[in-house]
């Protein structure tokens, strides 16, 4: 079954001294104020709205939603843990209610009037790629659609956040909210999901990718934060792809940054195929192929 992409939106906020203020932006995008929602939900609402605004047709009520995150409401969870153990204060009801990760896509479904499946998933290394796999299951019926969201926030202070994520002290960080609308109908599609592969070894991934043929002038390679410059060079030679797409400096690290690579590529390219490769700390590989139509 072919999977098509109708709209995309990639949004990054480079981490600064404090989290970006999004309340007014959420209000301007959705035309209403949300009380008591946290920053993670605000990020979610901003990205989702910008994607929905680019869809060729209104989102159908039966459109399912697959939401993914690496760290979820990390800021709120850290705050509540401190509150309970250090300050000996119980959590406030709304703060507690909102720390479950599926609250963010609940607000999206509510705002869009969806009456459909709503799944929140995570993966320690490849959350976005895993979400694409799960979304595929939602697209078995003709005419089905699936909104895929990939969101991550930072917890302040950033030194602690880097420590939690196992990153070097000077690693640039960002928050992100990246969204795609997928479906099984080729009409009005802007891109096509060609493949997603998970492999335990580089040679196994290389063998999988060797089954595909790309015109050299149309293929573009991008790599995730887990891939070194030297290894990227190896992939370029192995796949015979000479054009690269470099998004990492602009996006900075967050767990769902691959979703930014894909969404920003769709927004800035046409008639090209992106092959994105990443490697986890466990030395596993994942590749996603997106053909922009």
């Amino acid at each position, binding site marked *: 079954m072919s999977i098509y992409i109708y709209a995309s939106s990639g949004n990054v906020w480079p981490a600064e001294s404090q989290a970006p203020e999004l309340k007014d932006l959420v209000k301007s995008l959705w035309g209403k104020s949300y009380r008591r929602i946290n920053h993670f939900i605000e990020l979610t609402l901003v990205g989702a709205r910008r994607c929905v605004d680019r869809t060729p047709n209104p989102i159908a009520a039966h459109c399912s*939603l697959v939401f993914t*995150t*690496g*760290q*979820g409401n*990390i800021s709120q*969870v*850290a705050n*509540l*843990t*401190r509150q*309970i*153990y*250090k300050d*000996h*204060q*119980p*959590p*406030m*009801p709304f703060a*507690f*209610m909102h*720390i*479950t*990760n*599926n*609250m963010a*896509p*609940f607000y999206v*479904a*509510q705002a869009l*009037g*969806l*009456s*459909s*499946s*709503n*799944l*929140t*998933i*995570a*993966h*320690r*290394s490849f*959350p976005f790629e*895993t979400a694409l*796999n*799960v979304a595929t*299951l939602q697209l*078995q019926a003709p005419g089905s659609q699936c909104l895929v969201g990939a969101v991550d926030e930072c*917890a302040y202070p950033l030194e*602690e956040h880097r*420590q*939690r*994520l*196992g990153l070097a002290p000077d690693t640039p960080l960002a928050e992100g909210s990246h969204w795609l609308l997928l479906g099984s109908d080729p009409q009005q599609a802007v891109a096509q999901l060609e493949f997603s592969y*998970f492999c*335990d070894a580089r040679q196994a991934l290389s063998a999988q990718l060797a089954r595909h043929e790309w015109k050299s002038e149309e293929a573009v390679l991008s790599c995730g934060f887990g891939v070194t410059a030297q290894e990227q060079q190896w992939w370029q030679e192995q796949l015979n792809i000479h054009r690269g797409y470099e998004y990492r400096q602009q996006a900075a690290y967050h*767990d769902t940054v691959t979703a930014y690579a894909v969404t920003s590529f769709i927004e800035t390219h046409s008639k090209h195929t992106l092959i994105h490769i990443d490697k986890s700390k*466990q030395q596993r590989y994942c590749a996603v192929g997106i053909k922009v139509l």
Partner: protein
Amino acid sequence: MFGSGENQKVYIRGAGILCTLGASQQQVALACQNGTIAPQRIPAPQVCDTPIKYYRIGEHIHPARTRRLFEFMNYAVEQAMTDANLSTEELARTAVFCGSTACDISDLEEHYAAALTQDPNAMALYRSGFGILAGYVRDKYRLGGEEYSFNTACSSSANAFVTAAQMVSSGDCDHALVLGVEVLNQMSLQGFAAMMLLSQDDIRPFDAGRNGTLLGEAVACVVLSGKPAQDSAFCRDQPFYFLGGANLCDTKSITSSNADVIAQVMQRALHSAGLKAGDIDAIKAHGTGTENNDAAEAHAMQQVFTQHLPPFTSLKPYLGHTLGACGVVEMSVLLATIQQGFIPKTPTFAALDPQLGIEPLRDHGEFRQGNIMLNYFGFGGNNTSLILSNR
């Protein structure tokens, strides 16, 4: 909507469980047969003057005192893998699906509490990431398939189960370990207490005097496979298989479900299983014991089962509400008791609520073979219904 459609049948090939009732399918079934209800009292001075009742896994069931989360997971996974008798070759084609609400918070809290005794400015959460539990199981047991973590509140492991079944059915993976994990942590306990959702006495699902729920900890694991294991204790005689399931988000309220949407998700599960309401022989209700959720679930069952409401029960009085784990935990308990020929009564039910007009099993119901519906509803309007059969 999910459904096994024309793809291959998906069997429950093995199971492992660790909960307040015991540490094996046999112990759990026996405890249900005896009507065991054994919550303990846990101090939570920030939110309650008196200790809160909680279904804690006692040291007589499992001796772990530290890193209980990982000890419990190891125990349940190894039990399920032994039961399913997966070969090394099969493990190489096995994926892991984990559903949990609190994920590894219990472990992070344990670490933080210890760190604070050394340094008042210690960092809360020394690590983070919601995919950690599935990743841990994949690495430890050298599984060759993918890892998936579900975080949809109280329907987490039910959604993990339905997705896993669909992936095995469609051939995306050959076998799946599906885990439900929830281990005692102050975040959940105090959060529920702050929301005034906890009962001061017992969980009494569908009872006129119900006044809230109680939380519990449990870890359960089931192994899904395209073929039943002939030598598995769990599915020796009439192996259970997945017939269908559905998930539907109710966007009317964050915390309580609406009867119409619950009815819809049950209808969709029936449709995906290719069944009519009259084909269901028993229902495992979500049955939290809270005023609104039990009312919505009761009214939804009446909407779907217009001709005849099959016998139904809630297992939460035995286990507590194990939140994200309850999908696989309650399934494991139910299947363990069916192996012994019965569906457990709802032991705390005493008085019919005239507003609901229905009552769960007051006595254990004889049951050996049939189609069972299992319902799970979570915060964020996340509703899941699934259907298993051993017919």
